[in-house]
């Protein structure tokens, strides 16, 4: 088949994928594959790692080095890969339940060390695969199957947490803004250090249905109408109740695998 991105996909034996009709993870995967295809990288230099969950099915469909690990342990596995093969570009793709609930500690410590990973966090606000239980990112008052009267817990602001933990590149986009998301992923892959991209995604089957948000199209229209770019925010009140998209934080810091390499050289007396 004469398709530009076909060499990065397991089109022959894996597709069509198992995700629900209208699921945002497919759009995020689409943007990621295109970002990989447009960056001048050999597919043997890329490793995609994931944990458990809907979004962690993604590496199964991508034709490069992929690794589907334990629940919440995508980042520890990626750390091992990066330290063993520092020349590889390691991409972690995981969901909010995977990366922030069971893998929350790994997430903040990888950010603290500033290891050169690209983390694509697909946030669909619930645990989709197990049936719509509320997750650490479910907004307060929104319903899940285990929160029929609305979640009473406060939710995480992922981007603020990543920034405070020490990530050098923090950005947010939605599945409506796929060209924007593709650009952000390309930027994050070039960045040396821990780069986090939060992708606000739709789960029309569970979260959208339980919260009366309508189908996938209605949810995408909601994201279109309720998002604001970071340059448009002049005062804090502009961002109230809105999804702020764009590059939220960028800085420079020494990268962990390079610092570690120096220690190895000293110990081996090179």
């Amino acid at each position, binding site marked *: *088949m004469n*398709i*530009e991105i076909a060499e990065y*996909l397991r*089109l*022959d*034996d894996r*597709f*069509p*994928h198992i*995700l*629900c*009709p*209208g*699921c*945002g*993870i*497919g*759009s995020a*995967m*689409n*943007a990621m594959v*295109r970002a990989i295809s*447009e960056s*001048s990288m050999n597919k043997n230099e890329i490793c995609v790692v994931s944990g458990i969950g809907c979004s962690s099915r993604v590496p199964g469909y991508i034709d490069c080095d992929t690794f589907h690990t334990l629940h919440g342990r995508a980042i520890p596995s990626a750390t091992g890969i990066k330290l063993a093969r520092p020349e590889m570009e390691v991409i972690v793709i995981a969901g909010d339940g995977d990366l922030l609930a069971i893998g929350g500690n790994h997430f903040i410590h990888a950010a603290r060390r500033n290891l050169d990973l690209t983390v694509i966090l697909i946030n669909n606000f619930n645990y989709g695969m197990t049936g719509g239980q509320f997750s650490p990112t479910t907004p307060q008052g929104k319903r899940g199957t285990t929160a029929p009267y609305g979640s009473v817990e406060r939710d995480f602001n992922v981007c603020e947490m990543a920034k405070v933990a020490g990530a050098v590149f923090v950005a947010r986009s939605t*599945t*409506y803004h*796929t*060209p924007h998301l*593709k650009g952000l992923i390309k930027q994050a892959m070039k960045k040396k250090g821990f780069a986090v991209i939060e992708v606000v995604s739709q789960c029309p089957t569970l979260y959208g249905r339980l919260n009366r948000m309508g*189908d*996938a*199209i209605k949810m*995408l229209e909601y994201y279109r109408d309720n998002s604001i770019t970071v340059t448009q925010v002049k005062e804090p009140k502009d961002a109230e109740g809105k999804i702020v998209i764009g590059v939220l934080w960028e800085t420079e810091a020494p990268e962990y695998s390079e610092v570690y390499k120096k220690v190895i050289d000293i110990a081996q007396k090179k």
Partner: protein
Amino acid sequence: MKKSNPNPVVQTAKTGIEISIIKEFCKGCGICVEFCPKDVLALGSDLKTNCINIEACNGDALCELRCPDFAIFVKNPKKKAIKK
């Protein structure tokens, strides 16, 4: 392992823009139909996306980018190929 054999339905416009739809992959979510700025696509009776007005297509490939199922691909000869 089961081997799928993607078989795209290809349509070409006078402008040279080519739209291929892989019906086996399409799940009929309607995202491409709703967000097409030129109303080129529509859901057919088989609940899969169909190209009904290819001459109106401006080749922006938003459908291709948003499609969660990798079911639609647009080729625009006017767009320069991305340098590798």
